[in-house]
């Protein structure tokens, strides 16, 4: 890798293939590890269904319970802002849509660069604020280990490097773009080995919760 261009080509080529393979195989293995464990048949006579209440909980847990929201508004609002901001940058930035179109063959309308740019700034600021909260809030600091900070970094880097690439700062551009793509690959490789997996497992967790409560006649 003698030049930034070589670096970019490596990142877009072999490195991406490796990251994608680790991501896809890793996530599938993790999901299989969960569902193959199964659960024992419940012999108690049910009061309600499982499937419907389970699906309802999958949806309703997207909104916070009022009391815990009042007690911890920043966690909830900060969580919404950065997750939504991250998804907007990922899915509605025109160059990303073009990339996904070339891979998946489907496309959708994007947002103007100015909007995505502003969303990226808000997302970065929120992520920094959430990191400060994690370090200062007694419960979060207590619960947090190296993995929590590692996944924070993995979520933060793609936004920062994307922002720098878009604004053509810290030239040469191919190098910055290469670093941006590498940061995504870092995120993808970490996915199956960390709590980033919640992206795929939360619907399962919510469903089990709602289903088990539903059986007892309670909507959880």
């Amino acid at each position: 890798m003698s030049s930034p261009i070589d670096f970019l080509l490596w990142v877009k080529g072999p490195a991406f293939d490796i990251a994608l393979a680790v991501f896809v195989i890793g996530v599938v293995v993790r999901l299989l590890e969960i569902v193959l464990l199964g659960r024992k048949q419940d012999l108690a006579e049910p009061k309600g269904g499982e499937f419907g209440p389970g699906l309802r909980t999958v949806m309703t847990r997207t909104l916070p319970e009022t009391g815990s929201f009042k007690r911890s508004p920043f966690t909830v609002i900060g969580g919404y802002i950065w997750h939504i901001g991250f998804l907007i940058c990922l899915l509605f930035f025109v160059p990303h849509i073009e990339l996904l179109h070339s891979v998946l063959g489907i496309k959708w309308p994007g947002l103007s660069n100015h909007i995505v740019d502003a969303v990226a700034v808000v997302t970065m600021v929120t992520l920094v604020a959430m990191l400060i909260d994690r370090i200062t809030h007694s419960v979060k600091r207590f619960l947090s280990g190296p993995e929590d900070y590692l996944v924070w970094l993995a979520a933060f880097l793609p936004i920062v490097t994307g922002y720098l690439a878009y604004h053509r700062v810290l030239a040469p551009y191919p190098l910055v773009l290469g670093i941006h793509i590498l940061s995504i690959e870092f995120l993808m490789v970490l996915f199956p080995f960390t709590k980033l997996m919640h992206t795929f497992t939360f619907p399962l967790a919510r469903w089990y919760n709602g289903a088990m409560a539903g059986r007892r006649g309670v909507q959880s």
Partner: protein
Amino acid sequence: MSKATLERGLNALREEIDAPVAAFFSSCVNCGLCAEACLFYTETGDPRYTPINKLEPLRRIWEQEFTLWGRVKKALGLAQPVTDELLQEWEPLVYDACSLCGRCSMVCPVGNDIAYMIRKEREGFVASGNAPEGMKGASTRAIKIGSPMGVKFPAVQAQVRHIEADTGLKIPVDVEGADYLALLSSMEIMNFPEYIEALARIFKQAGVSWTLCSEAFEATNAGIQIGSSDIAAELVERVVKGAEKLKVKYVISPECGHAYTAIRWEGPNLIGRRYPFKVVHILELLDELRAAGKLKTKGMEEARLTFHDPCQIVRKGGVLEPPRNLLNQVAANFVEMSDHREMNWCCGGGGGVSANERADELRLKVFARKKSQLDELNVDKLVTACANCRLMLEDGLEEYRVELPVVGLTEMLAEHLVEDNE
């Protein structure tokens, strides 16, 4: 019980891991929101009491033995093992600072049912010998004597004789072919015999065919509280045998929260077979009688009163409407607490906490949550439907020097009953 060892504890933890547990641990992002739902955290501010933290031993077993990456880390010596020291350190978190109330399971944004996992984790604590002395004692008494408080059937008979003498009613015992077998909790037998009298009066008026069983009168189950499926199964089996012997159609779970969880939800799974009878909670039965016009009452309570939802009956049991329907029949000024029904706050003494003397100080401290709920309402009476909650509420109110009568709902209904001779 065979000798408790770390190895047995670890095996017990392994056996408890299923797909929901794996999905829950995989989804936790350490957001800390469960802390805000737990009275042991909100009233102490101690982050160790964050519900998900109480599961660290079980989480380690899951990560190190049920995930590929965890196994690699373990092989490389990068994993922290579950040791006796860890279990000893966690024991007060798992037993003193968790009432299995399940409120955390209602708020987790990724949907983790934390109480489901704590119940499972306790199996490993018991098997490794790390359980509070008070709860071990209650479990031993339940197995050897037949009741966690050491109550034997002659004590029930004594109460029955008193009630029969006072009321002139006959309390049926060991009647084969009765429709309903009524179970009791030790606390009702010893502290609140009014409950038995209330049953006798209500069932007479409603024409319910019922009986007590001399071999199966105890509904409480120390096994599910301490987390020993072996003990729990033996206690459930006693009830099932009694019910089968008397050929009843229904078994009535008394006003006791965890008894309902034990006999209604865990029971068939503990003994590995479905029951040949149905289980109803007393409030469900009373509500059925009310709907059928068989529960005739007169007069209304004028006192401003509220209802404390027992966690195991309401949030974990699905008996949501019956207490409200019944209260509205006899109370003119029934008001709800700010958080009620499935979001109610625990009395602090569920899940075996009340049987664990070591936890008394903490339990009374966190009762501040219930007190502040009551302070908002300014009520004259507190109604509940669990003998354990009732005792804990009385204890807490006394500690905080609040004069507020606590009554059982069944008993309150009996007070308003239209007697046959009227």
